[in-house]
């Protein structure tokens, strides 16, 4: 089977909206959101996701959304600092809604909404009156 350039299965519009969702979630929450779409290299998807997380800069503050479409596998892994703001329950909720979109064949839409959902959940409430004595 011929290799297809990576961008062709997600249109450039879709890739842009995924990247925008990631940037917005990062800005809203202060966590570093990363999205990976690709194979697990024969590894267990969860192990592959954890391995990729450890290669990220500031991994303890990172949230990695790992999607292996061929294995129909989705993993959301959080670094130790990020985990305090984004607990496993919130990750499960986002994973559920993304799973529903993926099952309907909508990779890009599921990613965009899932990342937004994670970012909203990790959002810091604005601290009031801390600037005034």
């Amino acid at each position, binding site marked *: 089977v011929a290799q297809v350039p*990576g961008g062709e299965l997600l249109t450039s519009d879709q890739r842009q909206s995924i990247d925008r969702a990631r940037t917005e979630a990062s800005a809203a929450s*202060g966590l570093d959101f990363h999205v990976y779409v690709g194979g697990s290299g024969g590894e267990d998807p969860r192990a592959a*996701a954890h391995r990729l997380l450890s290669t990220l800069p500031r991994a303890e503050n990172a949230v990695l959304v790992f999607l292996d479409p061929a294995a129909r596998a989705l993993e959301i892994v959080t670094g130790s600092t990020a985990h305090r703001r984004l607990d496993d329950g919130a990750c499960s909720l986002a994973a559920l809604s993304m799973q529903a979109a993926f099952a309907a064949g909508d990779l890009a839409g599921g990613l965009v909404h899932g990342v937004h959902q994670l970012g909203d959940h990790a959002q810091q409430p604005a601290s009031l009156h801390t600037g005034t004595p």
Partner: protein
Amino acid sequence: MQVVALTVVLAVTAVASVAVAGPSAASPPDTWPDSNAMSPLNALLLFGGGVLAAVLVITVLAMAPSTAKVQRHRPGRDWETESLWFGGPNSELVAQPAAGSHPALESSSARTGTAAIGQTVEGGGAGARW
């Protein structure tokens, strides 16, 4: 009853207008140039060919996008491409301190700094299969 009457009147009018009609009494003015009559073949080409060409062009324009559509991935099929990163190991950090957050609160997380690669950093997460 009124409907029947109306129908009869309309039918009679229609039939009469065709039956009674004769050739036009007026002839074209003599000053008009005497052009050659168009042959039936020319007329067909002019009035039929143009319409056909328009239909053809519109059909092609309508069908072109769907035939040129890029191949989409279906879940479960092999991912035959190189992987895609949004963010990723080589990215510049994107997280900005949330608007309105207090600098003193940020510094505590900043102090933990960069973890060595391979160090255990996992906090948690969730997974799903479909």
